[in-house]
């Protein structure tokens, strides 16, 4: 019996060890691959420049632009994220209160566990090609409860939004399905990851990550930045 038990234990340990080795190899291969893609940022000033470039790219969508360009508010968001929807009214209020004083930038950060988040980002990006970024962005949060948290593709619903806005549907479809649109979203995600974004919503005010818990927190941070 001792022999048999040993065989049982040996094979069990063997399977577990083989699995551990496979995972370790896969992780190592991945780490090696990602090293090539993201060289370590140089120290000092160039790291700072790098950070500011990453926060607001030339193609990043700006909801509002401050005349003096003094305060920039960047949000990494996911259109299917419940807490982003919870933050949406506060951000809208903030935009109203600080119109013309603060630049509001939106960056895409769809989270993989949200089934329609990437689709939503593609729809917003496709709408932006026809000048309807803000409308589609707002529409996503206003309707999130109707299509969020479901495992069925929401393409038709998003297309319906485009139709409601009177967009050129052929052009919308083309942009929605264009690999370049997805690449554009993935560049935002890559910037977010490089900036240390691990979840949504993540806010940066003049380059510093802030963690507001209410509209009052947001207002206080923006007021401090404007001083």
């Amino acid at each position: 019996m001792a022999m048999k038990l040993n065989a049982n234990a040996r094979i069990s340990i063997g399977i577990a060890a083989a699995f551990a080795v496979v995972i370790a190899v896969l992780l190592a291969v991945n780490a090696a691959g990602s090293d090539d893609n993201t060289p370590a940022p140089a120290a000092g000033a160039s790291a700072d420049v790098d950070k500011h470039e990453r926060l607001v790219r030339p193609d990043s969508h700006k909801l509002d632009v401050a005349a003096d360009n003094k305060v920039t508010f960047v949000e990494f968001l996911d259109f299917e994220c419940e807490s982003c929807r919870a933050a949406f009214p506060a951000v809208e209020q903030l935009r109203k209160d600080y119109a013309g004083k603060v630049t509001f930038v939106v960056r895409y950060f769809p989270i993989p566990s949200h089934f329609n988040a990437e689709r939503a980002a593609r729809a917003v990006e496709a709408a932006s090609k026809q000048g309807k970024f803000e409308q589609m962005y707002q529409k996503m949060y206003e309707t999130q409860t109707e299509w969020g948290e479901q495992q069925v593709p929401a393409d038709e619903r998003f297309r319906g939004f485009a139709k409601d806005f009177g967009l050129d549907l052929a052009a919308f479809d083309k942009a929605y399905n264009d690999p370049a649109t997805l690449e554009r979203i993935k560049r935002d995600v890559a910037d977010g990851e490089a900036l240390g974004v691990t979840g949504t919503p993540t806010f940066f005010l003049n380059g510093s990550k802030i963690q507001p818990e209410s509209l009052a927190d947001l207002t206080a941070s923006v007021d401090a930045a404007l001083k």
Partner: protein
Amino acid sequence: MPPSSSAARGTAYREWPSLEAPGPFPRLLPWLLLIGGAIGLLAASVLTVEKIAILRDPTYVPSCSINPVLSCGSVMTKPQAEAFGFPNPLLGIAGFAIVASIGAALLAGAAFRRWFWLGLQAGATFGVVFVHWLIFQSLYRIGALCPYCMAVWTVTIAIFWYVTLHNLNRYLPAPPTLSLITRYHGVVLTAWTVLLLALIGEQFWSYWRTLP
């Protein structure tokens, strides 16, 4: 571990279970039921307490994270967390308390009749089916992991496996490969675990690879 008592298979003990027919895992099974039941009970209790805390503060919306363990809305706020119309952990508290008690009773020298073992089999089978449904929901519908839930998955699978082996060796129609799978009980359990870990690893790979 003493030899498996396939010789004890017969009809005599069906009417009068005795300590002479201890089943294939006379020491492992009672301890597994006691300790596994206790772990499950503890995890289910923690989940119940957390559920109450969430109910007290319904406005709380945690941020969405690429970390599946901290993912938004936590697993507990999802409809799947109340599969039968009440919080799942309440089932766990009742079920695991019974399992732990049976383990303690066996350690104290208790012997149970066939119907009692089959009752435990029914409960363990329900538990293991339910747990796999939860695993599927967690991985492919909710897209998040919860550490206490995973503790429950683990002990439920182990309890089911050894209760089933015990009952197959004594009370249930034995498949032809029974002696083989009884001998290699640990291999089956390890393969089962590795398969689940592989599914978890695959589903959340985009996150794991961000961990340097």
